[in-house]
């Protein structure tokens, strides 16, 4: 067995094991353990990317997923502070069973398709395609595939528009989050009465209605 193959099995098995651990009853009952298993899965995936000589993607995977996103995940889970005994035991409902059967069916179909594609005469050769990034030529060989130079060139030529659009998307998400989370509520014309606390703080009930309005901008 070559080095790559060994590493592939280690990382692939690791990814699967972490993914399974995320859902298993023992570990999965603790949200923190589930989240950390997810970090493990993502870390193994980063290793697989590195094996495919996509070093940049691998490093970015770790930075973005394992680092930033997972920290946020863990924070959310921690602030929720779910105790294991508060989590409801898993109960099988008809819907869940149906979903499971459908999922298994799709999974079986996928396996069949993969087997067919791997062995049958009707197979589609996926290898050269998956190496090509979006319509660029792969006939010219794999020069610089996965390197930072090549990815950068792609991002700033062929995929300039999606790349720039993503920055707009992030801006929209940031603006949206600020609007929904940070803006102070205007009670001027709102039908809901202000909280009782404000009533006590202010002298007149009418004044209480605008109490929260001008302070925090």
């Amino acid at each position, binding site marked *: 067995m070559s080095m790559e193959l060994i590493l592939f099995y280690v990382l692939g098995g690791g990814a699967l094991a972490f993914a399974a651990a995320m859902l298993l009853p023992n570990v999965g009952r603790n949200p923190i353990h589930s989240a950390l298993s997810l970090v493990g899965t993502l870390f193994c995936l980063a290793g697989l990317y590195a094996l495919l000589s996509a070093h940049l993607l691998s490093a970015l995977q770790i930075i973005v997923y394992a680092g930033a996103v997972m920290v946020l995940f863990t924070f959310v889970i921690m602030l929720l502070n779910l105790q294991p005994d508060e989590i409801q035991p898993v109960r099988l409902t008809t819907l869940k069973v149906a979903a499971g059967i459908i999922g298994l069916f*799709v999974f079986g*179909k996928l396996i069949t398709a993969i087997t067919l*594609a791997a062995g049958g005469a009707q197979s*589609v050769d996926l290898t050269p395609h998956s190496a090509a990034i979006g319509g660029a030529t792969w006939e010219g060989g794999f020069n610089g595939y996965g390197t930072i130079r090549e990815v950068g060139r792609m991002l700033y030529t062929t995929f300039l*528009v999606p790349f720039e659009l*993503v920055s707009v*998307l992030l801006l*929209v998400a940031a603006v949206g989050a600020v*609007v929904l989370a940070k803006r102070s509520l205007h009670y001027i014309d709102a039908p809901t009465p202000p909280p009782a606390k404000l009533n006590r703080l202010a002298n007149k009930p009418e004044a209480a209605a605008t109490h929260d309005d001008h302070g925090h901008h």
Partner: protein
Amino acid sequence: MLHDLVLTAPLLILLFAALFTLVVDAFLPSSANRSFWGYFGAAASAASVLAAAGLWKFGGALEMHTTAFSHQLSMGPYSLFFIALTGICAMVTHLSSPKYMSEHGSGWGEYYALLHFAAFGMGAMVAAESLLTLFVGLEIMSMAIYVLVAIKRTSQASVEAGMKYFIMGSVASAFLLYGMAFLYGLSGSTGYLEISLALAKPGVNTLWLALAVLLTSAAFLFKVAAVPFHMWTPDAYEGAPTPITGLMSSAVKAAGFAALLKFLYACLGGPAMSSLHAQVPALFATIAVVTMTVGNLLALTQKSAKRTLAYSSIAHAGYLLLGCVAFVADPNLPGYQQPTGAVPFYLVGYAFASLAGFSALTVLGKGGEERTDEEQIIGLGRNYPFAGAVLALAMISLAGVPPTLGFFGKLQLARDVLGVEGGKYLPYIIILVLNSVVSAYYYLRITVWVYMRPEPKQTPEYIRETSLQWAMGIAAVGILLVGILPQRALQLGARGVASIRTPAALQSLRYELAKPGAQPVAQPVAQPVAQPLAKAAEAPAPVEAKPAAEN
């Protein structure tokens, strides 16, 4: 580069309007009245519409290509048509917002910026020529709309609506990405045209393709609120601020359908889907009739006008989906006709009618109240005749009473679908007719509330505002104009549809793609906007029997 920037000007105007709003608003005192942003937004949207019209008119004379930025965006007639349509919808929404939003305590500058962002995202997803651009555009639009739905933070219904819409929408996006991953795996490309050519080669695994089609279609069906994925619609429509509900039922629906049609037609249509031609049209037709029936039947039982219109939008999604059948039909069968402009035309009609309806309902949002039941609407015709008239006009148009837009729209849809496979879908069209008869009941019921009920003892208060009246006026004029001159709108739509870059429509491009080692992405396609496409619209080019043979 300059060429690309000029070509994408309608989108860039919206983007810069959004950024301008955000930056300037940050420096305004917090107590300042933000209503002027509504007028500014309407002006910016109008500028975008004008830019689109200008490109449509002069693009050919300036010998411009239709695609920009390495074929990631196409700004041909189809995209321009829908960018103009969504631009008009955004304009009406901007105009109907200021008073309503400040009455509801959410008239922040960010609201108007997010409206611009939503319109920008719609433009990007309609103009997309690759899966990546499509997805990111769709997400920009959705993200902005999620926030806009939940922006009335003092209202529990609004926040709940936003939350529901966000969670279900995220699941739909995951479906879309999953389907796109299959398409990429099958074709090795993310460009519509490249995928279409790759899928036309023999030996494409049908199962993978079916999964890809199902998953991507499911995501779009969610966005346009078709039946298995319609659960979010009534709550989101009812909880959202009424101007935003108008935007969702007009622009979001139009953009969703426009992107779906282009994706189906350019990416999967024609030879690409040859192995699935037996199933996909039937699937769409079935979903269509189920959608329209469920939407109409549920609308019958509603008490609130806003919720009725939400279910009516599900029903209209069903009518439109039936029109989509023409886009996925097998072109190799005898008697095949290329789809005409029926779906775009219907979308225009529906957009104006629902904009008029929802902007008329906006007047009921006085004092942060949000009820659109019978008691609130009764007397609208006498106490606020203009709003009442606009609401009645919208209802008549939505019901498809013969001289109006809705009638012509359904007629065109039926003609398009009848051409598919020698009238195989005639039963479905009969169901459509029956459905529109059923729907007339609840539309006319609202009209009866407006005019033919005894006045209540106390007159409800309305939002009376100039910009809101402008919004109602523009929507009503839109209904009337397109109702009087349906042929013109139909022609524009047909020209748009004919300009979609399908492999069949782009035979001139073929030699470049067929050459071994050619880089289809790197070379600009010499294809002036106006002349060849105008010809194509007049006389649709005969479709090659096996366009992919030379690959």
